[in-house]
């Protein structure tokens, strides 16, 4: 509820445009648009720039629709988690039914828009990714299993595939490798967050890995997935659709991520595995994971633009 001298009851106060924007999870949307733009840029067939921009807008709206439907469904657990209690629905600034209607309308609009601007294969994948995030992850997995974000991570891995499909009208090995990279990036990213926010998750009854299996097991899993991520990030070079520039960037970024994972694994902890440093390494790993994905995909796009630095070869 709004505070201050001019406070109104929720029904009378209503929302502001900013609340509807927050409902779309803008920071997640930014990452989604970025990875899908890279998928679109490295595709072998060019797309009309305006149609490409509209396709990216549609992907952004689809991701935003998923966020809105997620906030509608999770309003009960969002209300008890400190990190999410201020979101528009649990805070009472947007009525749950309005959030659901907004999310559904935006989801349909985004799918039709990308179908008209690009092709119906991209539209079908976008529709499936929204379904996967909302129904499979949010409604099915999130409250039931500690593997929620491992399987649910697939939803966030679709954008580069959609970008590629928007440009080419097909799916190839390259976008599937990008899918794999984002898929393997998701667990260390979210489990780092869950390590220092596990009290929130425990209070809400969400079975995140640190809540169910403990911090020690989570740190081991972060290390395992980071190694797998490093290996998968080199696949574009091995498969020949990325060159030296990307390969060097993937190695350096992977080594830095491994160092963070190592620091998380060796964090000072008590006999139950609880961090004695306030989960400082996990916080650093979480922040770095975002930089990692931006830099890795940026290197791939740059590598593609420069022709893989083939001009450096004799």
């Amino acid at each position, binding site marked *: 509820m709004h505070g201050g001298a*001019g406070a*109104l009851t929720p029904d*009378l106060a209503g*929302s502001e*445009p900013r609340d509807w924007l927050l409902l779309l999870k803008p920071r997640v949307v930014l990452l989604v648009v970025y990875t899908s733009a890279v998928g679109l840029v490295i595709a072998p067939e060019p797309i009309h720039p305006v*149609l490409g921009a*509209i396709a990216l807008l549609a992907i952004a709206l689809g991701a935003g629709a998923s966020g809105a439907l997620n906030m509608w469904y999770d309003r009960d657990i969002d209300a008890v988690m400190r990190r999410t209690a201020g979101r528009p629905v649990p805070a009472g600034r947007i009525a749950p039914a309005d959030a659901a209607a907004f999310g559904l309308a935006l989801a349909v609009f985004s799918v039709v*828009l990308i179908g*008209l601007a690009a092709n119906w294969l991209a539209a079908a994948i976008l529709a499936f990714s929204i379904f996967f995030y909302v129904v499979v992850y949010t409604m099915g997995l999130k409250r039931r299993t500690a593997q929620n974000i491992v399987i649910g991570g697939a939803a966030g891995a679709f954008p580069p595939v959609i970008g590629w499909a928007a440009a080419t009208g097909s799916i190839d090995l390259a976008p599937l490798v990008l899918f794999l990279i984002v898929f393997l990036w998701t667990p260390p990213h979210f489990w780092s967050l869950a390590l220092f926010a596990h009290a929130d998750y425990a209070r809400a009854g969400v079975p995140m890995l640190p809540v169910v299996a403990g911090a020690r097991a989570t740190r081991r899993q972060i290390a395992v997935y980071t190694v797998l991520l490093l290996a998968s990030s080199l696949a574009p070079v091995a498969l020949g659709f990325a060159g030296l520039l990307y390969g060097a960037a993937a190695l350096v970024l992977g080594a830095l991520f491994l160092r963070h994972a190592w620091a998380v694994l060796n964090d000072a902890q008590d006999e139950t595995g609880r961090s004695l440093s306030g989960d400082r390494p996990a916080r650093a790993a979480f922040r770095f994971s975002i930089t990692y994905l931006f830099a890795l995909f940026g290197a791939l796009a740059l590598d593609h633009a420069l022709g893989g630095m083939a001009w450096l070869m004799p």
Partner: protein
Amino acid sequence: MAHAVSERQHQATPRGEAHDPQAVEIVAHLTRAQSEDLARRRRVRNRALGLVLVGLVALFFALSVSRLADVGDPQKWSRPGAIAPSR
């Protein structure tokens, strides 16, 4: 802060209009500051909605023009019975 919101049946129906026994009148007793805040929020929402509508017009105009520009050389497909290729 508590606010008095009263609902009461219409006492009188203007001559010539059909009487609607279900009709209610909602009267919110707001302070001046609250009224101004409510009006400001409405104004911001209306402007945002206006921008969205203008954006939609621009979006579909750009989409249509770009699709027309993206159909390639009409010489290659504009023969009887042919349609513009689409991806």
